[in-house]
Structures are given as C-alpha cells and as structure tokens.
C-alpha cells in the first residue's frame, strides 16, 4: 500500500489530496472520500484515514481531498460553499479517474455534510456505481440553523448574552459580511445554498447502489425513519443503523476507528469489491 500526498488544480485553487493505492494491481475499484464541514472534518480525520487504509488493504484505491478553503487546500473558509465543494468533488473525481485503470468502478463516501455532498455529486456522475453515506444531513435548512447556533453559543460564552441574534446574523450576511461558525467564516451564498438542500424531496437520480448508515448510540437512534425513507429513494438503497458514538464532535472516547460502522460498510461493499 502506498500513500501519496499532492496538490492538484481545482478551478481556481490548488487542492490538497492523499492517494491511497493498494500494493496489488488487481484493484477492486476506487473511492473518493468527501469530508464533513468545519471542525467535524478534524474530529473525524483519523476515522477517514483508517477506513481509507482498510479499503486499500482490500485492493481498492482511495482519494481523500480537501475542498477549497478547508484543510490544507488553498482559499479561505467562506469560499467552501456547497456549490464550490461540489465542483471540487467533480475535479477530484477527475483526478481519481486519471490515476485508475479505465473502466474501474467508482464510488463516493461521505460523513454528515460530506455525505450530503456525495449524494448530490453522484446525481451528475454516471460512472459512480457505489455511494456510501454515513449519517448524512438530509435537510440543509436545519443544519444551517445549527451552524448559526454555534455562533450564538460563542457569543454567550464571550459576552454572557446574545448580542446578534439569528436575524441580525442573516442580515449581516446579506450585507456582505461573513458569520463566524466555530472559527470558520460562512458567507450568504454558503448559508443559502445549504438551506436549499433537501435530499428527501425527490427520488434520487443516481443509479448507484447506495448505503445509508445512521450512526447513533444504541440508546438514542434519532433519524431512523428518515434514513430508511431516504434510502428507499434510490433504486438500490440500503439503510443500516451503526452503533457508534457521535465521533464527529468532541467526546470523551478517542475515535481512531469506527469498528461497527466499518464492518457494516465493508459487509455491504463486499459483493461488489469481490466481483470487480
């Protein structure tokens, strides 16, 4: 297995990526990993790396990359709007195609908002045959509100009160300012594009096989019905509940791997990766 870090050209920004390649040349397909938003990307980084290595050990090629304005890529955080990230995913898929043998089976994998972006990207990429969505954000509007809530929480921590409520923050974005979300700047375009996403609104146009995994502690499954309804929008969709802690935020356990989520995903992928 080899791991190669490099920069590749996006539309107007250099994007950072790491390519995980199996030692064996009998490759069993290739996956592009789509990272979640903001600090969630950092909390989940080790899980992404571990799963990339797991797939490479099984003969698959994996490309992990950073959207513009995130991770090591060029640009500032306000540039990482959903539309811009989707464009970056398409560019990264191009890089992955170049690095793999012609006709190799392509897949997309994402967690939280990265899963949302992976689902949207799969709609326009006909050669994507597998989509793995870990705990996707199904509706963008409540998620955008959740991000604004982080700004309110910072205000309370700093001033002991909310000085700029949601309406003021939205107006600020409309006036051309950015809003700070846990250290990341969000623009009006990012906020509005995010708010317009509703993965449950219509049948998915992608013909890919799709795994939708809800990640929850056993005691508190949260979105089970929605997850099952979303998976049913795919011609070949499977919903599972993977019992894990919410490792995309600060929790007491150290999550370098998500064993049950990995097992559920590998179990679902197995027939295809063996068949290729």
């Amino acid at each position, binding site marked *: 297995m080899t*791991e190669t*870090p*490099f*920069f590749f050209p996006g539309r107007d920004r*250099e994007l*950072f990526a*790491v390519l995980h390649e199996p030692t064996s040349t009998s490759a069993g397909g290739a996956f592009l990993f789509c990272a979640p938003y*903001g*600090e969630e990307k*950092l*909390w989940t*980084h*080790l899980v992404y*790396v571990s799963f990339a290595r797991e797939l490479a050990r099984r003969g698959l090629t994996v490309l992990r990359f950073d959207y513009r304005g*995130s*991770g*090591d890529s*060029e640009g500032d*955080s306000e540039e990482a709007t959903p539309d811009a990230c989707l464009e970056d995913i398409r560019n990264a898929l191009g890089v992955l195609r170049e690095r793999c043998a012609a006709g190799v089976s392509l897949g997309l994998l994402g967690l939280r908002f990265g899963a949302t972006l992976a689902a949207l990207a799969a709609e326009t990429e006909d050669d994507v045959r597998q989509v793995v969505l870990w705990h996707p954000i199904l509706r963008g509007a409540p998620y955008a509100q959740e991000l604004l809530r982080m700004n309110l929480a*910072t205000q*309370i*921590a*700093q001033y*002991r*009160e909310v000085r700029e409520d949601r309406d003021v923050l939205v107006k600020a974005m409309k006036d051309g300012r950015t809003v*700070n979300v*846990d*250290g*990341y*700047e969000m623009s009006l375009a990012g906020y509005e594009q995010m708010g317009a996403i509703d993965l449950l609104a219509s049948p998915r146009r992608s013909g890919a096989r799709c795994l939708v995994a809800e990640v929850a502690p056993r005691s508190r499954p949260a979105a089970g019905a929605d997850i099952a309804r979303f998976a049913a929008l795919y011609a070949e969709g499977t919903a599972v509940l993977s019992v894990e802690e919410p490792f995309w935020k*600060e*929790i*007491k*356990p*150290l999550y*370098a791997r998500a064993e049950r989520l990995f097992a559920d995903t590998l179990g679902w992928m197995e027939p295809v990766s063996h068949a290729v």
Partner: protein
Amino acid sequence: MRCEAVTFSNRDGLRLFGIVHLPQTRRPRSVPVILLSPGIKSRVAPHRLYVKLARHLASLGFIVLRFDFAGLGDSEGSVRETAMADFYGTVQSGRYVDDTRAAMDWMQREYGTSKFILAGLCGGAITGLLAGARDARVDALIALGLPVLLDSRDIDSTRYLTVGELKQWREGYKSKLADPKSWLRLLTLRSNYRVIFRAIADWWNKRSSPRPTTAQRLQQDVDNFNPLVPKAFEAMVANRRVLLVFGEADRLFPIYDERLARPYSAMLKRHADRLKLQVVPGANHTFSLKGWEEAMRGHVEAWLETHVRV
C-alpha cells in the same frame, strides 16, 4: 507563497506527512518556524489556525513546516489510547518530542538551517517546550494556550480547579440561570455536579474564611500539575526566548497563572527579559473569532520582529 506536500521519517521509521510554506522572497529568514500539532486536530489545527498562521509567517519571509505527529492526521502509526484524556496526558508527558526533533533533522537536511522556532497551540505548545528543553537547536518558542497540567481518565480534574477556573465556571452558570435548556440538563442528570458543587463551595468558603494559597494547597495534596513543566520552562528561558499567548477566557490561563507563574515567580523574574506574556482580551482557547486570531497573530509578528534576530 508556495506550498509543498512533504513526507519524512521519524526515529521509528514511520512516515510523517507535512506541508511546507515557502515565502516568495529568494532570501528567506534564516530561522524557520515549525508548527506542532495541537492534540488530535493535526497540522491544520482548530478552524485552520495553523494554515492561516503559516501563510502569515511565510508572508513575513519565514519558511514554515507544519506536520502530523505519528498516528495523527495523515502520518503513519497509530494511537492506542481509547480515551482523549489519556491521549492528552501522553502528549503532555512528551510523547511527540522525538517526532519534533525528527522534523528539525529533516529541515536541517532540506534547508541547511540549524536553528528553529517552535510554535504550537495547547498540545503543540507543551511539546515545543519539552523539545526545547532537550534540543539546543530550538532558538525560540511561541506557546499558545500552554497547558501545565496532566490529563488522564484517572485524574479527577474537578478536584484541582484553580480560583480563576472556578470563577469562570461560576460566571458561566450565572449566565445560564435563565436558560430553560440548562435547567433541563441539570434536572436530567446531564450537568457536571462536581464542578457546580465546587464552584459554589469556593464562593461560599471565600465568604466565610480565607482560601489557602496555591502553595499551601500543593503541599497538602498530590495533584495534577505536570512535573516536567518547571524544569523545561527554566531550561528554555535560561538562554532562549519564549512568547506565551493566552486567550483571556481560556481556562488554561488562570491555571498557568496559579500553578506556574505564581509558585515559580522567582524563576520567571530571573529570566524576565527572555519571557513575554500576551493575553488576548475576551479570546477563547483556540482564538476562534477573526479579531482574536488577528490579535494573536499581531502579538506573534511583533514579538518575532522585536525579540528574535532572524
């Protein structure tokens, strides 16, 4: 400014991944900066703090390396601890000092430099301090939010809260009195009752009797102070320069003040000309608001220009 993705081996033969920021100038400053990963958040750091800091330092003419320690970020290796607190404890005990020295070895080979400025937030700050104490190539240290305690699942850190921390907790609780969600947390057993009890008891005791000094408390009790810190601190400031930057609202600031600065004030005074402390008003541990971050960067830039001959 140009970025390059690089890898190099540590002393265990594991490949470490990093990014080098190269300034535009043909004559970069003679002492490069190495940014050391804070805890688990890799070479990017919370809200990309290191990416932005590295760009800024490169614009000032510095070569900057930020890299992942073994088992973190993209680097090879693994982290076997299953609890964050235990992992942080190993970092605070010097887990990544050798990786830091391997980074200096690599920079020395690659760029021909023999002196380095180490910089880091939290876990990166303590790693820089411990590395500086062991390696004379460290010319200066920029420590952001320096932790001076040891974390572990086995340590009940609520037992050792400083006066400043308890005050911060009390103010936080006061501001939440009118918040129904906070009451719901309290009534559904999700609040930290030990901290609440200690915050109130501290306030009550202060009203009724004088509180023992930190020195008295240290004598009374085995505690969670990092025993490596005073010696490493003295080794650094004895002949190298150190910049400490804290956010005013960072709980690590009162801990530094009460557990290191006051008990070891004589040592700090002896080396006062080489030690600079800056506090960013209102800022949290990670300088997450733009203004806080810019203020922190301003302190770093001013200190580099004034105190470090590069």
